[in-house]
């Protein structure tokens, strides 16, 4: 018999609970240490920007939030693909768990971007391609959450949400290349490239790594909660059916 792949081995929720239970404290601790270190660098080491002054400090949380807004949707879309194509038992759990976390980071990207925009651009909001496409991403996340919560049957809800998630994945390249395709007020991406001075790039990279670890920790925790919720639901339903059957036989 062929040796099962890592994905196949992880398909067992009990095995996933064991593995994630062991991983979660380490991922959480890594996130806490990295974010704390990033904040020390941001507030005590990184210099003010020659144009933006101290307002550049907003970039250290805005860029990671925007990155995770997109990565979060990538996780939702990949999990949805896993559900529809491979019928992986944990794919729906992953997609369902990642959506609210991705929505939270998208909201943070919009809010921190607005709070940076007011002193730098003179306005909280402009309908330029980058800002508008990120707002659409946020609405897409809300749509996924609303669609799932409006359907009672878990299997149907999972499949329909997965279809919507895969249709919506077209927004990711639009967000990414919006600053190149259209004339936007939002500057082109410079976040992680060598064009940023190391005194600012290092805190940005550490912050992005810390926030990414935090995303994985939150996602693991949310998946564990969802597995427990499904177990509670399955046991309760089985018990109801058993007691209904027993009453009918009396």
């Amino acid at each position: 018999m062929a040796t099962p792949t890592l994905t196949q081995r992880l398909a067992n929720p009990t095995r996933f609970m064991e593995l994630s239970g062991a991983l979660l404290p380490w991922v959480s601790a890594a996130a806490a240490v990295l974010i704390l270190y990033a904040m020390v660098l941001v507030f005590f080491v990184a210099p003010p920007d020659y144009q933006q002054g101290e307002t550049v400090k907003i970039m250290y949380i805005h860029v990671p939030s925007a990155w995770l807004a997109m990565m979060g949707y990538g996780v939702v879309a990949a999990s949805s693909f896993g559900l529809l194509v491979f019928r992986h038992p944990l794919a729906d759990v992953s997609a369902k768990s990642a959506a609210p976390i991705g929505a939270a980071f998208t909201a943070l990207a919009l809010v921190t971007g607005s709070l940076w925009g007011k002193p730098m651009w003179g306005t909280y909001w402009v309908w330029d391609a980058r800002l508008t496409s990120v707002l659409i991403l946020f609405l897409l996340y809300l749509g996924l959450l609303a669609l799932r919560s409006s359907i009672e049957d878990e299997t149907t809800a999972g499949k329909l949400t997965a279809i919507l998630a895969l249709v919506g994945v077209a927004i990711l390249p639009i967000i990414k290349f919006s600053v190149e395709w259209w004339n936007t007020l939002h500057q082109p991406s410079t976040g992680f490239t060598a064009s940023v001075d190391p005194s600012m790039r290092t805190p940005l990279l550490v912050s992005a790594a810390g926030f990414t670890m935090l995303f994985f920790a939150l996602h693991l925790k949310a998946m564990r909660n969802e597995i427990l919720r499904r177990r509670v639901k399955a046991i309760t339903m089985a018990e109801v059916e058993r007691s209904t059957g027993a009453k009918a036989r009396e």
Partner: protein
Amino acid sequence: MGLGPHAGFIWAAYGAVIVVLAGLIGWLVYDGRRQTRALADLEARGIKRRSAGG
């Protein structure tokens, strides 16, 4: 630590991140405890998953 004339915007941005992420973490921890307790209650009443054995 002086944050210049736009300090209010900087603190508001960091405040928003702290509030949203603390809310998310708090909700996940609360939800995890609630589900664990519900499962423990069912098992205490002798109702178990078929795969749980016993």
